[in-house]
């Protein structure tokens, strides 16, 4: 029987590709909007994004507070109002830096009790060995974690991308030279490298940032290089060369945009790693110096009071854990969103 057929459904290329003998798909799911839409569908990635957002807002708040008000405090007018570093914190609550008068030390969090008394809402997470509020110190500690984590990653990301792209695009002896240098860097353990850097240049935060950043260059460079080497073989690169487009334009217009995605994912993961490294350095006493709060340094101090006051260690530890996991699961989600192979 001849029948009348009434199909009515939307059209896309996906379907054809899944039929197996359609044209092979290309990596064409492009654009930020598409990536965001993918992430929005992924609850794990959204959790990561949420954690990052919270930590980011807290860090921003603490940074503004510490930088802006220190700057304002220089001026007479503001000094009269008692404006100084950590002004908001001090006005609202108490200073994360100086030792407050009359606050009980090593007070437990709300709902717990120890030999120093019961936890109060004035110090929801308890106080440290000098009677400073732990919550406040964790909030202000996020400042170091996030700024150092991000800027170190940016240093590694930018230099690594350029090194990797140049190395991969030109190949030959340029590639050999740059990659052998990167491998040499890679052969030295991360922490040792950063410590050596600090030992040579000093303990300033800037050098920590550069130390961690430089130590991560090989990771980025190798990643982007391997992408570029395969992108370089793509016909559209050759087409651009055949058309007479300059090398610089080819690298910036075609090579880097098309090799970018895995590096972006790596960068997200790298922020977590950098935070961990910075915490480790602080723990060893190489980070920012007391009384400026940082998570690693809080952990280091809390060691001596762990028993019977475990929360003193638990809170900064949790802060590090949650932030690093937040960056990692967001990175994973980003990879899934950017890599069409994971999409169904």
């Amino acid at each position: 029987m001849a029948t009348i057929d009434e199909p009515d459904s939307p059209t896309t290329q996906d379907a054809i590709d899944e039929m197996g003998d359609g044209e092979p798909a290309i990596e064409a799911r492009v654009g930020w909007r598409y990536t965001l839409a993918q992430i929005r569908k992924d609850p794990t990635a959204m959790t990561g994004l949420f954690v990052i957002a919270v930590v980011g807002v807290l860090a921003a708040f603490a940074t503004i507070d510490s930088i802006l008000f220190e700057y304002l405090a220089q001026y007479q007018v503001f000094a009269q109002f008692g404006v100084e570093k950590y002004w908001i914190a001090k006005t609202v609550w108490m200073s994360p830096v100086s030792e407050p008068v009359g606050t009980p030390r090593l007070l437990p969090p709300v709902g717990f009790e120890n030999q120093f008394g019961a936890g109060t809402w004035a110090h929801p997470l308890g106080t440290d060995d000098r009677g400073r509020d732990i919550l406040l110190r964790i909030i202000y500690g996020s400042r170091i974690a996030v700024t150092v984590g991000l800027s170190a990653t940016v240093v590694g990301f930018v230099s690594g991308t350029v090194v990797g792209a140049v190395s991969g695009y030109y190949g030959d002896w340029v590639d050999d030279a740059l990659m052998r240098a990167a491998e040499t860097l890679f052969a030295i353990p991360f922490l040792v490298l950063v410590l050596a850097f600090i030992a040579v240049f000093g303990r300033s935060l800037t050098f920590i940032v550069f130390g961690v950043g430089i130590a991560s260059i090989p990771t980025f460079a190798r990643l982007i290089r391997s992408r570029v080497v395969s992108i370089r073989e793509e016909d559209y690169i050759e087409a651009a060369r055949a058309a007479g487009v300059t090398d610089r334009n080819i690298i910036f217009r075609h090579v880097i945009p098309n090799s970018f995605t895995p590096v972006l994912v790596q960068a997200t993961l790298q922020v977590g790693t950098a935070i961990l490294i910075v915490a480790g350095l602080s723990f060893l006493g190489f980070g920012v110096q007391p009384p400026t709060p940082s998570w690693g340094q809080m952990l280091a101090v809390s060691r001596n009071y762990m028993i019977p006051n475990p929360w003193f260690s638990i809170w900064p530890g949790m802060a590090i854990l949650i932030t690093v996991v937040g960056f990692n699961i967001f990175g994973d989600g980003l990879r899934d969103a950017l890599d069409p192979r994971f999409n169904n």
Partner: protein
Amino acid sequence: MTDPLLSVENLQTYFFTEDGVVQAVDGISFDVMPGELVGLVGESGAGKSVASTSILRLVEDPGRIVGGRVEFKGETLFEIETDDEGTPVENEDATPVETDESLSQQEMRRRIRGREIAIIFQDPMESLNPVYTVGGQLREFIEINRDLGKSAAKTAAIDMLREVGIPEAPARYSDYPHQFSGGMRQRVLIAMALACEPSLIIADEPTTALDVTVEGQILDLVADLQEKYGTAFVWVTHDMGVVAEICDRVNVMYLGEMVEQADVDDLFYDTKHPYTEALLESIPRPDRTVEELNPIAGVMPEAIDPPRGCRFHTRCPDAREACTRIDPDCRVVEDGYSPHRAACIKYDAFGNVGYDASPPLDNETRSGVDVTLTGDGGHQGGDDDE
């Protein structure tokens, strides 16, 4: 007349994707007689590969066989239950129900795949595991499927390699797939397919990736082996040259449907369906100079949203208004030594459905610019990695 070896009836395989249902194979029927070499021809997206994997029930998610019946040597490989009107019955999950006679996946694996029906894929490199030796893989296959001991299987494997024309077979036995050339790898796959002396081999574009001189060698080999073992073949290809070369009968597919079935000579010299005709018109010839090619206008529409009525009407030079209304099945339009079927309502076999009376259609054959995009311009998937 003998009973068919393989009989496919009204096979439907759909892919259930995020964006809708792709009707990759939509109700095709064909038979394969014992020892016969049957071509399954079509362009990319015609659904020929999906049809061939459906026979062995190797369709992967999100694809699913949603209707039809496949019978092999009188045994039902699978059948989707239908109600009195022929509509497939679905259970509460909207999954089509298989009848009780259908074989389980386990039985398919144990009795049918490899032993009775073997399959050869287009890319031999993907079908061979790169970390095992070629001989080892062949031996293991023979061991499992022919219940032979290890050393007997090895001897059989070397014999098979020699049979398919691998030089220095004993030495090449312990080589790895990457040490073989493309043509040699395809020979290994043919050896593997033949190892259990199956009655049917499904060859999915087995020579497409090969050079012409190598393709010639493989076609030679297949012809010789077919004569020797009497194996039937379903040869999936897009190359009309290969079809003319080796096929006995040909099934032409377009957009998930069967449009023409005929003996190879009739198909080329007494072409019935406008699609087949247009396809033959559009190929350049190696044996004579064609000054002007006659391409088929436009591009194949997508199986997710196929045109109503006859699926070819958007590109058909003979299309009339009636073609947009009526979806013709593939029926006998000329009786001969073997029946010639075509799915086109311009033939009398379809009765008077208003073809002659309706006006010609203003379709892509009459417009100059190729305006059809493949999608909505939004995005495209990459699900071809496996």
